[in-house]
């Protein structure tokens, strides 16, 4: 059931996920489409997430946005200070401005990174984790991971895990999506594109997620006039995902767009996405066990089971 409506306010709105936004030219959503998008969300009981471009929006847009409860997703380069203070999620497109940034609690931060940059610069995350409530690291070239990269990623997770353990013992409780999400979950909690959330693009049409808009504008799933029309919508649900429904890497993004890009099917993840998610899962398991050595921690959560695989696809014979 759809619960969230992501509204891209402009073609250059910040990309906060695995895909990159190819648009360079401004194209602001029309005021009518913005108004109708908000109306649609009200009628369908959807929570709105506005995604901002870098430039200052016209006053009438700001007024309209403020007329409804919402969340704001902005770029770290967004310069409107007033609006910036109102933001809920701040997105870094790369590491260039991370080191000098004045991180503060109360917001969620997203750092988008290539695998190479992550392996080179992950140490700087340790300091940031001491300052923020939540940090999401989003890898933008998941499909390029090699066996060697998996080993490097495992090492990165292990080091970050040790840092998080120290912070938790010291009484802080920052969240890092790669490590803390899994230990707090008791069921799948994925991106939900096409199932729990949909995207309204500046052209007034709906998309499964921003990436589908960025990749092919013709790939819409309805518009504000005719409403939502998601073909084969069951394929976005877990019960129609043949690998994922057997999986317990519950923190996995299960990125529908990456699925389609790598395997040609929205319900089937690539080997790389599965292994990355399982390295995170296993690191979360270690972290949970380590923190619990210091005292009671998340007592309502079961232990994360030890498993002997990194890609559930390899265990498919056991599903029959």
């Amino acid at each position, binding site marked *: 059931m759809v619960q969230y409506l992501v509204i891209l306010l402009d073609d250059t709105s910040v990309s906060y996920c695995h895909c990159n936004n190819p648009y360079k030219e401004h194209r602001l959503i029309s005021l009518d489409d913005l108004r109708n998008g908000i109306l649609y969300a009200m009628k369908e009981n959807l929570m709105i997430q506005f995604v901002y471009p870098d430039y200052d929006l016209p006053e009438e847009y700001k007024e309209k946005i403020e007329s409804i409860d919402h969340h704001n997703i902005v770029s770290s380069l967004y310069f409107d200070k007033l609006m910036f203070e109102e933001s809920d999620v701040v997105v870094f497109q790369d590491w260039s401005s991370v080191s000098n940034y004045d991180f503060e609690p109360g917001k969620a931060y997203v750092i988008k990174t290539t695998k190479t940059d992550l392996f080179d610069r992950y140490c700087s995350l340790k300091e940031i984790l001491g300052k923020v409530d939540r940090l999401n690291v989003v890898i933008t070239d998941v*499909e390029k991971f090699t066996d060697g990269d998996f080993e490097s990623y495992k090492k990165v997770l292990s080091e970050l895990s040790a840092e998080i353990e120290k912070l938790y013992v010291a009484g802080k409780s920052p969240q890092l999506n790669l490590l803390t999400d899994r230990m707090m979950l008791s069921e799948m909690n994925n991106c939900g594109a096409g199932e729990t959330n949909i995207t309204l693009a500046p052209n007034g049409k709906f998309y499964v997620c921003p990436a589908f808009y960025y990749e092919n504008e013709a790939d819409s799933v309805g518009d504000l006039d005719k409403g939502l029309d998601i*073909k*084969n919508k069951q*394929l976005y649900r877990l019960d129609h*995902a*043949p690998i994922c429904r057997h999986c317990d890497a519950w923190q996995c993004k299960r990125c529908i767009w990456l699925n389609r890009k790598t*395997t040609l099917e929205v319900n*089937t993840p690539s080997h790389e996405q599965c292994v990355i998610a399982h390295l995170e899962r296993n690191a979360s398991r270690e972290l949970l066990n380590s923190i619990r050595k210091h005292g009671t921690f998340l007592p309502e959560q079961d232990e994360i089971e030890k498993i002997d695989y990194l890609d559930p*696809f390899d265990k498919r014979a056991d599903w*029959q």
Partner: protein
Amino acid sequence: MTISVAQSVINYILSTSFLVKGTTIIYDFIGGEPLLKINLISEIMDYAVNEMKKSNLGLKFKIRITTNGILYNNSKVQSFIQKYHDHLIISISIDGTKKKNDLNRVFKNGKGSYDSIISNVYLWHSQFPFIGTRMTISHDDIPFVYESVKHLISLGIKKIDVNPVLENVWQEGDEVIYEEQLMNIADYIIDNDLYFDKELDLTCFDEYIGKPLGKKDMINPCGSMFLSVDSLGRFYTCMRFAKYSLRSKKPRIIGDIHNGIDKNKLRPLYALDLQSLYTSECFFCEVATGCKWCPAENYDSSSTGTIYERSVATCNMHKARVRAKNYYWNKIYQKNKWIE
């Protein structure tokens, strides 16, 4: 296909461990009409056999060819058959009576092929007596199904797979005629006591069909064991994913001889199960078993270019087959209950 492309394919297969994990490779040549290229096929197989020996992988092999039969008695074809007889599975596509066969199988000039292949059918049957034929039927063929099956049986062919095409060619009422035709076949077989012949195998009356899905029915029966390659060396999981087989979708290529197979593109086919594929109507259908589907036809007919949208074009034809199959087995039971 050039011999160079074919050799690259064989080299790739033999050097790719996950493709040769079994002990038997089946080389399946499909066309067009494969026997038009018997010299190439012969050259490919000679190379493949030699390379398999050199590989020391202990591989066995089979050669499968489906032909229209016109060139079957050609001397080069017969030489090939002599050389590889024990490895060969050759099927001749003959659709039944002259009238039925000549509806679909015609020369460029419009003349039907029946008269040109019937003597070759006898030759083929003498060389491969245990190999059957697949009788593919479309809308126009339905009234001829009974006569055609009877004719194939009279030719000595014992394994006959009556196979409605999966494409959406069916019209209202087709299922009624189809059911009648299959019941006529049932009557013919039972009234003439042909069902005592253990070698007679008509798949339309398989006991397995027409039951609710069980656990063993949940897996994808297709697409998990084949590597298909086109004349340019591009890989597919089935030739039905190649451009020339598809009506409206883009070819679904999984690799090529230069770059190998992209294993991520195999995952949807290997993982595909009926829970993910079926809507609840199909999943809980009380006569679901034996209802044929094909990932490539799903893909071609789908609204979003997915193999996971079950094509249901043959639903009524399947249900007609189930009713005829029930009739067949009940009639046998009624006829023999006095014996028991």
